[in-house]
C-alpha cells in the first residue's frame, strides 16, 4: 500500500488549485490523503511525482481524479427511516404548500445512489414529473456514470433490503435491468433531471431550492469549508426549505446555528429559518 506524505499531499493540492482552479485545500486531510493513495494504487502510480506529471499533462485524467477523490455514497436508500420521513412528511408537506414545480438539489453527487433513490420515491408518490431535480458534481465523469445508470453489484443486496425497509411499494428490481451481468438502473427515471458542473464550493449554486439532500458529504471537508458551503446552501434555499445531512454529521458550531432549526433529530433534517 502506497503511503503519501503530508508534503506530497499539499503539493498535489497546490498543483490542482493553480492549474485547474479546483481548491481541495480545505478537504479533510486524512480521508483526502487516503483517496489519493487508493487512486494511485488503482492506477498503478508508484510515486507522487508521476501522479503530479499526469495531473499536469492530462486534463481528462484530472477530471477522473476529481471524480475518484470524491467518495461515492454507500448504497441506495441508506437509512431507510429517513426515506419514510421524506415520503410521509417532508415531500408531502412541500407539495401541499407549494404545489408542483418545486426544486430539489443534490450537491456534490458522485454515484447517483441518492438521486435514483429519490426518483423512485417520487415516482411511487406520483410526483416525479411534478418536481425539478438538480444534480451537481465536481466531475464530468461522475455525471456520465450517474447518467449511465450503472450500479455496482456489491451494493445490490443492501439496497434491496433498504428499499423494503423504506416502505417501497414494489421490489427494487422493478427499477433495474441486467445487461451482460451488470446491473443498470432505469435511466428513464432521471430523464428530466438537470445536471451541471460545480467547483469545490458547490458553485454555481441554484436558487429557490425547497429541499437539499446533502448526506455524508460534509464529512470530507474541514470545518472551514463546511462553514463556507453551508452558507452557500443556505443562500440557495427558500425560507422554510429543508436540508438533510448525514446521520452523524452536525451543524454544531458551524455557520447554521441561527440560520437553521433542527426539526428531526433522528434523521438530521434541518429547516431554513428566515
Amino acid at each position: 500500500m502506497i503511503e503519501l506524505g503530508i508534503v506530497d499531499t499539499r503539493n498535489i493540492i497546490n498543483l490542482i488549485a493553480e492549474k485547474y482552479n479546483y481548491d481541495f485545500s480545505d478537504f479533510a486531510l486524512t480521508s483526502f490523503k487516503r483517496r489519493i493513495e487508493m487512486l494511485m494504487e488503482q492506477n498503478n502510480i508508484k510515486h507522487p511525482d508521476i501522479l503530479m506529471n499526469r495531473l499536469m499533462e492530462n486534463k481528462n485524467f484530472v477530471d477522473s481524479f476529481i471524480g475518484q477523490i470524491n467518495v461515492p455514497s454507500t448504497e441506495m436508500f441508506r437509512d431507510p427511516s429517513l426515506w419514510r420521513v421524506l415520503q410521509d412528511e417532508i415531500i408531502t408537506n412541500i407539495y401541499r404548500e407549494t404545489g408542483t414545480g418545486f426544486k430539489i438539489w443534490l450537491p456534490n453527487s458522485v454515484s447517483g445512489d441518492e438521486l435514483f433513490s429519490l426518483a423512485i420515491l417520487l415516482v411511487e408518490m406520483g410526483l416525479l414529473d411534478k418536481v425539478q431535480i438538480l444534480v451537481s458534481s465536481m466531475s464530468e465523469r461522475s455525471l456520465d456514470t450517474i447518467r449511465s445508470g450503472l450500479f455496482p453489484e456489491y451494493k445490490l443486496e443492501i439496497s434491496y433490503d433498504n428499499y423494503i425497509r423504506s416502505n417501497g411499494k414494489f421490489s427494487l428490481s422493478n427499477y433495474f435491468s441486467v445487461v451482460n451481468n451488470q446491473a443498470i438502473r432505469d435511466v428513464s427515471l432521471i430523464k428530466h433531471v438537470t445536471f451541471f458542473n460545480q467547483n469545490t464550493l458547490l458553485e454555481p449554486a441554484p436558487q429557490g431550492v425547497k429541499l437539499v439532500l446533502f448526506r455524508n458529504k460534509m464529512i470530507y471537508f474541514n470545518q472551514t469549508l463546511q462553514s463556507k458551503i453551508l452558507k452557500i446552501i443556505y443562500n440557495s434555499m427558500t425560507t422554510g426549505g429543508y436540508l438533510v445531512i448525514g446521520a452523524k454529521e452536525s451543524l454544531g458550531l458551524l455557520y447554521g446555528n441561527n440560520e437553521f432549526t433542527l426539526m428531526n433529530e433522528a434523521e438530521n433534517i434541518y429547516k431554513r429559518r428566515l
Partner: protein
Amino acid sequence: MYKAVVIGGSAGSFQVLTRILSALPKTYPIPVLLSMHRLKHIRSGFLEALAIKSNLPVVEPFDKEQIKPGRAYLAPANYHMFIELGNRIALSTEEPVHHSRPSIDLSFITAAQAFRDKMVGIILSGANSDGAYGLQKVKENNGITIVQDPNECQVRTMTEAAMKLTRVDHVFTTDQIINFLLKLN
C-alpha cells in the same frame, strides 16, 4: 502520557469488550476508541448495550468531534472512524474494507498516523483479518500492540492474522488486558 487506547473486535468480542469497559473507572484519563464490526443497517442498540456495562460514557461521535479523556467512542454503524489531525474524529463512508464499515484497519492506520507512539492498539476476537494491517502500522509507529490470547477467543482468526503480520508486544487474556490498561493509567 498516552493519547488513546484503540480497540478493534468482531465476532466474539462483545463480551470481552463489556468486561473491559466495566473494569475501567469513570475517571480513566485516556480516551478509548472502539472500532467494532456491527450490522450496517441498524443504527441503534449496540451503543446502548455497551453503555449499560461501562463506567465511561460511550458515545457514537459526530464527524470532527474533539476527542476527550473520560469517554469511549464507538464507530457508528455504516461509517468508518478515522482519527484526524488536531485530535478529532473524522467519519467516512468510503468503500468497505474486508467487507466491513467500520473497518478496524482504517481506524488503526489513521490513529497510528495521528498518535504515533502515544497509543495502544488492541485486537480482540474476530472472524476475519481486518485489523492486522492496521496493527502493523501501530507497531511501525512504536505504539503498543496487544492481541487477545487466541486460546481465549471465541473466534481466533483475527488475532492470529494480526500475530502473523506483526510481532505484537503482548498476547493477553481479558484479565491481563484490563490490568495492563489500569496500570497505564
